[in-house]
């Protein structure tokens, strides 16, 4: 287990270095940054001074090394747009995205797994059939369309829920949370539902397919032949085997949720990192874009490693515990 962990950490470091390289290259592709830092009519001496001060006169690999060194301490420099530290900008926006993604992920599991089980256990029932159909719609409709539909129905026509923003948030240290106020919770409903819809249908269909597969296995047949109760067969014997592969997919999708959050945040004007990223793109604010890229990649890497570890914990066949098979 320890060897596995070390291997994964080394892999992760390589992944992050590659991502950092891409982020670093972004600065180069955006042209000479000195142009945007000095006055239009600056002299060559003035330009060189700026260049020297920013370390831009150094060889490229030294610049990359410095970038990595600073990035690993969370320092991505100043935003080109409003000259505030990028790390401050991101940490202001991080709670909004984190809460949105968390709620969406929770909803997708909480709704997706029971619906998947239901449709697997009674595949020919009317409710299962209609859920299958609905999930097909859920999986094929673009999320911004569902978002706009949700706004139309629940905000414009019914007036029940806000169509934009986070509502009232309360600051706990540097974290601003919408969980503690009614308006904050109400504001979460539509965006998190829009965000989770795709994962929800995916998880439902996955649980259904896996569970139906598991219910056909010999060990389920043998469990039935031993007279175990249906409850135990479905929820102890079958579900555990069903959820192991589901967890992997869910973990991978969690990263996808963060990426998809960009769209949701744009539709609902949600003040998260995704919205910040879109702004940064439209202004060519490279430090913010680079920092976002690195941060999201880091989250991806952490999630994937956790999922792999969890998988090993859940599936006894992957546990390396020294006990060898006897004869």
């Amino acid at each position, binding site marked *: 287990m320890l060897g596995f962990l070390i291997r994964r950490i080394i892999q992760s470091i390589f992944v992050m270095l590659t991502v950092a390289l891409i982020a670093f290259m972004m600065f180069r592709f955006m042209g000479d940054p000195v142009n945007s830092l000095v006055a239009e009519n600056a002299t060559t001496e003035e330009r060189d001074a700026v260049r020297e001060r920013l370390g831009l006169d150094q060889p490229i690999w030294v610049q990359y090394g410095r970038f990595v060194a600073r990035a690993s301490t969370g320092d991505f420099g100043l935003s080109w747009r409003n000259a505030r530290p990028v790390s401050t900008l991101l940490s202001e926006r991080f709670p909004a995205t984190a809460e949105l993604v968390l709620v969406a992920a929770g909803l997708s599991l909480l709704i997706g797994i029971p619906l998947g089980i239901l449709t697997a256990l009674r595949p020919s029932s009317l409710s299962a059939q209609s859920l299958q159909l609905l999930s097909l719609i859920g999986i094929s409709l673009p999320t911004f369309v569902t978002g706009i539909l949700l706004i139309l129905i629940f905000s414009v026509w019914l007036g029940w829920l806000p169509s934009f923003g986070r509502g009232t948030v309360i600051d706990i240290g540097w974290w601003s949370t919408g969980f503690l106020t009614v308006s904050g919770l109400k504001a979460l409903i539509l965006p998190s539902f829009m965000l989770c819809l795709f994962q929800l249908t995916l998880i439902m269909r996955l649980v259904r397919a896996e569970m139906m597969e598991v219910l056909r296995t010999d060990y389920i047949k*043998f469990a039935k032949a031993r007279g*175990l109760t249906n409850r135990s067969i479905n929820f102890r014997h079958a579900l555990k085997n069903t959820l192991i592969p589901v967890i992997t997919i869910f973990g991978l999708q969690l990263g996808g949720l963060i990426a998809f959050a960009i769209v949701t945040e744009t539709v609902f004007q949600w003040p998260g990192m995704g919205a910040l990223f879109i702004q940064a793109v439209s202004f060519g604010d490279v430090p913010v874009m680079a920092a976002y890229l690195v941060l999201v990649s880091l989250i991806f890497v952490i999630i994937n490693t956790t999922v792999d570890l969890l998988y090993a914990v859940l599936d006894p066949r992957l546990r390396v515990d020294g006990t060898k098979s*006897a004869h």
Partner: protein
Amino acid sequence: MTLLTVENLTVAFPGRRGTVNAIEDVTLSVSPGEILGMVGESGAGKSMTGAAIIGLIEPPGGITQGEIRLEGDRIDNLRPEAMRRIRGRKIGAIFQDPLTSLNPVLTVGEQLIETIQTHLKLSKADARERAIDWLRRVGIPAPEARIDTYPHQYSGGMRQRVVIALALCAEPRLVIADEPTTALDVSVQAQIIALLRRLARETGVAVILVTHDMGVIAETADRVAVMYAGRIVEVGSVAEVLTAPKHPYTSGLMASIPRIGPRPDVLAQIEGAMPRPNARPEGCAFAPRCPHKMDICLQQRPKLEGSEEKSVACHLIEEVSV
């Protein structure tokens, strides 16, 4: 009193082109403590007969005719919950593949203890004691330690021993062993059969032993039923059926066993193939392959007739006895 009686049992599956009978008009009985061997080529209906007895025919299939009695009471028309209580407690089952019969994410102990507690009112600690005891009885070394390990930590032969413990741990009166050694190494097959035989003697459990191995039947079974195309064609004591087969199909089966002995028989094969359930001829299903077929064989199905000692479904026999 007989333990199990199956009378005129027919199991049908609705299909696109009408229903097909997986088994037809099957009649057999098992006495307490008896080992009934069951042989016949692939698709003859051996597993289906077992599935019907234990009440696990997969929908849309179902029993369309006949009845099954256990200790005198009908069990073929019980409600699902009542039948569930019988499975494991009165009738156990052992399947072919021990590698896939055990749940990979539960320990051997968890699976045993749950089975015991489902059927017997025992505390967890007592159930655990019993589980360890069963592992010992089926020959698992160091059962106190092995009980908390997972199936993948056992070899194939050891897993089949665990499967046997699981099938017997709630002390059923009858166990259906469907080709329990087919998936195992030849070297462990004999051990598993010997174990089954010993446990059957010790516990008095009756066994329906499905196998393709006539040698196993000869050594292990008290009686044997021969199935062909969904029907029982010959049933009787092992001595009678194996040494003096009356049905031409049984004779063919016997002749196809390679023998080591003073009279090295040529390996005789029965020509042709068993008809599929949806293409069985009107008369005797074996007639197209039968070396002794008569006109009547093509028109009329022979009935299973005879004594306790031996029954045969063949027109030849009627010819002789009339």
